[in-house]
């Protein structure tokens, strides 16, 4: 079924009785060419691009709960490509370009809104680092724009320019950055993949891998064994748990990241604002809630909930930078589990087990990466060669000493 204004109009006149399921609810088949473990944004995008770009349709996506129940369903919805390092920036820029055409591509309005993202600058050293990054973005074909304090004062008069502990000295804009309605991304990809023949199987948890002589032949699930030529793990947040079933230790720790939304408010924020001297970033959703977040709690956790110190820390950052939000109320606060990698950058790679592939380590930057991650993983699965923008996202990079460490924090995941 193709969605359109006309379709809505016709359904509206006939009592909205003609809508059909956005995706089927198939029983798992005994065998697929490719089984993707994880019905999150990345897994569904991978399936979509496998079918659409590489013509591989005998594909299943296995999801232990409901699709989109992982981090694509609980994030702060930001898209951007303002990275520094060559191992990252071309990948995220490709992702941003994919976002730009995504809705027309999969015929689903995910409310991609390029309302800009701003990183505030509070010191000269920070400005030097942002200039370097802005130029790296240009070199990779992305957009970037430096603003001085006066310009920001005119554009965002509600920021605290006069009484701030860490004065605002300027900012780095990426105007093409913005936000996306996160759940819709999962649904759009699922619907698109389903329409192209991919089986999306919910409530199907993988309990083991069928590995023989160094080759992965399929998976055990709560709904029976499923054989596959290739098994693609795509379960960021749970990577450690799932890959342990294949006997692998990863350069990843699982950490909880909290996110926050306020009650609905009439429009106050034009775009995404990031306060680097504190730990706070914020945007406003189409429904009016201020959606914000900060640092991870900082300890290993699979609990999908956090604790008060970070809640307070984030609120302090918010009040420090925009004290007008003091009377806005926090409505909901949730936690998601992040694959925090050892250098803050992800992996899209084969493993040492033949037929077993791994996508993970997204830290808390996975949402914006969804389209490119799907595209690059699909490329790897279909061609057995990395996509040109994902050549450095390898598991062996630490052994080689090839680090993609944007923040320069080293092998301590909770600092990335």
């Amino acid at each position, binding site marked *: 079924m193709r969605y359109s*204004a006309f379709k809505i109009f016709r359904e509206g006149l006939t009592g909205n009785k003609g809508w059909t399921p956005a995706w089927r609810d198939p029983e798992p088949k005994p065998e697929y060419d490719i089984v993707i473990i994880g019905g999150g944004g990345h897994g569904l995008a991978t399936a979509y691009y496998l079918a659409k770009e590489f013509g591989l349709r005998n594909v299943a996506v296995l999801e232990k709960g409901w699709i989109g129940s992982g981090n694509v369903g609980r994030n702060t919805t930001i898209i951007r490509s303002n990275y520094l390092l060559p191992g990252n920036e071309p990948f995220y820029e490709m992702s941003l370009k994919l976002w730009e055409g995504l809705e027309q591509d999969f015929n689903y309005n995910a409310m991609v809104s390029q309302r800009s993202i701003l990183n505030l600058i509070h010191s000269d050293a920070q400005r030097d680092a942002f200039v370097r990054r802005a130029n790296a973005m240009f070199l990779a074909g992305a957009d970037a724009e430096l603003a001085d304090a006066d310009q920001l004062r005119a554009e965002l008069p509600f920021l605290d320019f006069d009484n701030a502990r860490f004065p605002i000295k300027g900012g780095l804009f990426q105007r093409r950055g913005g936000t996306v309605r996160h759940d819709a991304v999962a649904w759009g990809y699922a619907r698109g993949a389903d329409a192209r023949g991919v089986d999306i199987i919910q409530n199907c948890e993988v309990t083991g891998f069928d590995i023989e002589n160094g080759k992965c032949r399929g998976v055990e699930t709560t709904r029976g064994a499923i054989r596959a030529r290739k098994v693609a793990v795509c379960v960021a947040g749970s990577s450690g748990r799932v890959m342990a079933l294949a006997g692998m230790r990863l350069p990843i720790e699982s950490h909880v990241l909290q996110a926050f939304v306020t009650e609905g*408010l009439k429009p106050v924020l034009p775009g995404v604002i990031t306060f680097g001297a504190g730990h706070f970033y914020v945007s406003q959703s189409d429904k009016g809630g201020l959606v914000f977040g900060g640092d991870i709690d900082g300890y290993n956790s699979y609990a999908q909930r956090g604790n008060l110190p970070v809640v307070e820390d984030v609120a302090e950052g918010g009040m420090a930078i925009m004290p007008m939000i003091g009377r806005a109320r926090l409505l909901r606060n949730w936690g998601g589990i992040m694959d925090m990698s050892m250098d803050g950058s992800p992996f899209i790679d084969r493993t040492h087990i033949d037929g077993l592939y791994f996508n993970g380590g997204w830290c808390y930057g996975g949402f914006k990466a969804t389209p490119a991650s799907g595209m690059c993983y699909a490329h790897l699965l279909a061609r057995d060669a990395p996509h040109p923008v994902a050549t450095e996202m390898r598991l062996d990079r630490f052994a080689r000493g090839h680090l993609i460490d944007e923040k320069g924090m080293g092998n301590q995941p909770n600092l990335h």
Partner: protein
Amino acid sequence: MSQVNRIKGGLIDRSTEISFSFNGKAMQGHPGDTLASALLANGQRLVGRSFKYHRPRGIFTAGSEEPNALVELRKGAAQEPNTRATVAELFDGLEARSQNHRGSLEFDLMAVTDLLSPFLSAGFYYKTFMWPRAFWEKLYEPAIRASAGLGQLSMEEDPDCYDKGYLHCDLLVIGAGPAGLMAARTAARAGVRVILADEDFVMGGRLNAETLEVDGMPGADWAATVVAELAAMENVRLMPRSTVYGAYDHGIYGMLERCTDHLAFSGGKPRQVLWRVYSRHAVLAAGATERPIAFGNNDRPGVMLAGAVRAYANRWGVAPGRRVAVFTNNDDGWRSAADLVAKGVEVPAVIDTRDAPAVCDVHGARHIRGAAVMDTKGRKGLRQISLIDGQMIDVDCLAVSGGWNPNVHLTCHQRGRPEWRDDLAAFVPGRDLPPGMVVAGAANGAMTLAAALRDGVAVTERLGYTDTGDLPRAEDEPRDGAPIWHVSQSRARAWLDLQNDVTVKDVKQAHQEGFRSVEHLKRYTTLGMATDQGKTANIPALAVMAECTGKTIPETGTTIFRPPYTPVPIGALAGRARGRDFRPYRLTPSHRWAEANGATFVEVGNWLRAQWFAREGEQGWRDSVDREVLMTRRSVGICDVTTLGKIDIQGRDAGEFLNRVYCNGFATLAVGRVRYGLMLREDGIAYDDGTTARMGEHHYVMTTTTANAVTVFRRLEFARQCLWPDLDVHLISTTDGWAQFAVAGPNARNLLRKVVDKAHDLSNEAFPFMGCGEVTVCGGMPARLFRISFSGELAYEVAVPARFGNAMMGVLMEAGREFDAVPYGTEALGVMRIEKGHAAGNELNGQTTAHNLGMGRMVSRKKDCIGNVLSHRPELLREDAVKLVGFRPVNRDTGLIAGSHFIGQGDAVMMDNDQGWMSSVAYSPSLGHSIGLGFLKRGDARLGEILRAVSPVHGREMEVEVVPAHFIDPEGERLRG
């Protein structure tokens, strides 16, 4: 008399009349009123508009679960959007306004969306607005945003202050209704520390809203006597107006106390206090929330929850209507009818979905059995209801009861799942409660008064707190019911989520489109996402979904309740940490001197440091900085460098310890000598640098960079305790203890000779470069002297106890007067270190190795040290790695740009041609042109080469020449002189 609906009784002070306004209209109420009760008393039924369709909305509940009656309170910067009128305490002068309408509340222009509702069903926006692409941001989205949202922020800084605090107790009782009061009393009498918190401003919970008796007295009176007993006990803390909003790990609870929200003016005191309550145990006695039944047009003002209707009558002396019908599926609804009649309100009918005898006698009311309300009329307020059998009844208020849901929210904050109880047709707390928490009363499914009282005692005793007193006498009032969730015969839209306009049809459509998991349902329809978090909507919607799927409600699922229980202002979560109080300030010892001498300050972490010292006549900061550099290099300059981390390291194994934490050797450092040290992280990346001085046989003083002072200390403690626990090493920070000044320049020694006591020989022979020692200054003041140089000049750092630092700065300047000594700030410091080619934060950025920094040979292969092994990984030692080198502009008039990238002559400006970046730049007044440090591929082998430094973000590029990083005195003659 504006209070047309005021009836007798209630816990309000009728002797005092207070004035308030709603949408500018003056109204009156009494102390004890909420804004909602006062609005109802004044006959104001229409109070707001719904989120999506802008449908008229009235007051629906009498508590914090309110989905409809959201208003803006106060004005100007104090404007407070989305406040529930049902919990806003009335005060004299209160100004309230309705929100979310264009034009007046009565004639909201946006109400046109309601006419388009067939086209705006669940998830419609995912299916359209995609063409043309550019229209989304420009047209569709702004329109959606403007119509969405609810209240308005003032856009001004929150004028109130907030505070936080910590409370500790043995038992936290959450909710001061019958169960909570009994729990608190039991534990209090047992002598343990008790905190009793309730979100209401009057303790007693439902007892204040009911006509039930305890121990032979009215419930509210009984509650007051218990509260009085507790208030007199030293081990009890009563906290009304305090909402426990979150249950966090290990018995930590978040609680918001509203201190001045019920006052017209805060008097400069915190508006709210955010308490973290540390409690061994908690009794959750949060009561229950009534749920509605969905039927056609059930969203009109005048349709209310039955328990709320009787609360208004009993507690506030307000009749929400003049003719009030009751629609119920359970016994409890009948009590509303009976209480209203007892207060003289006309109740034309009690419509019970059950075909069963009357629960009690309701004078004047028809009992309509096995019936249901199907539709309503009344555009801005209820006028008439029609039943499924076709009969119509004129009413202006309909009290609806669909049963009660235990308030299990806090039991789920640690991911516990509630369990379904068929006899109650409701979820009750599951077994997986937050550790230390027990649940009592209606929250635990003990739905009658007597049961709640019993339960409050029982759960507390189970925690080990016992009281031998008698259980208060009360009755078990009838609470039977038979669930019905929506009236299937209704043809008109039947609302589930009143705020977000989610109807039964929307749920059915979500099912039809495959959004069947509860989470999909919520996300697709926005059910339960409004400010009330679906407190009244979620369970009925779940029931509708269960009907569609043919499963039971528990099979269909439950949603996860997350903190906060009710919304918490961001201002309260931030507390005092805002504006200049966001983080503490650290001041250098000479701060006062600097202030008095024209310093401009800059934030360096939490420190404020003098950036430069402007003199009269200087046109801008560059003038000052150039002068400071030139005067220092020409004669002598003084800079407060106290912010560098200082760690006192003592112990028999201190030398060995240092040898392991620095990559270069420290084993051979002699007493009285200083050495530069480079520290790596264990992953082999350069981490921090500084000097360490050997002050005595077993005594060293380490300096770290300002930025890393805290983390270096932490890492050293890790090495000491976890890696080599049997080394005798002891660390203590002395950063704040010593005021340390760099005295740099050709006249540094001459100046210091005037200050350091004569007994100390400062000659080059006696106190050479990289020497150190304890000295006295100014006639016996203990001091430390280090001959080290960051500027490249003949330089010393002299340290005195910090309390003498301000005076010391003055003395140094006074002694330096004959040399034209200048104070210099961080800018001049930065210029001189770039001139000298020293790496600083921009170079030691956590991404560079000793190899990159040109210090690869310092990493000794002959000993173990942190980072040694991993620093030798192949790709970190690549032959084409970037190397730190100097740059100068080919056109000397050009200013370099930090952050520019290096591109070869003739190469395209793109990533594949990127050869490195400029990390630091400065204008060198010594050389008369801009200079830079940067990282360039194979940089050390490319001296003399001409490259382009491009900065596309500035739209600029310039030619630069690769030069050695030492721009000044490359042989180091000055600093050894």
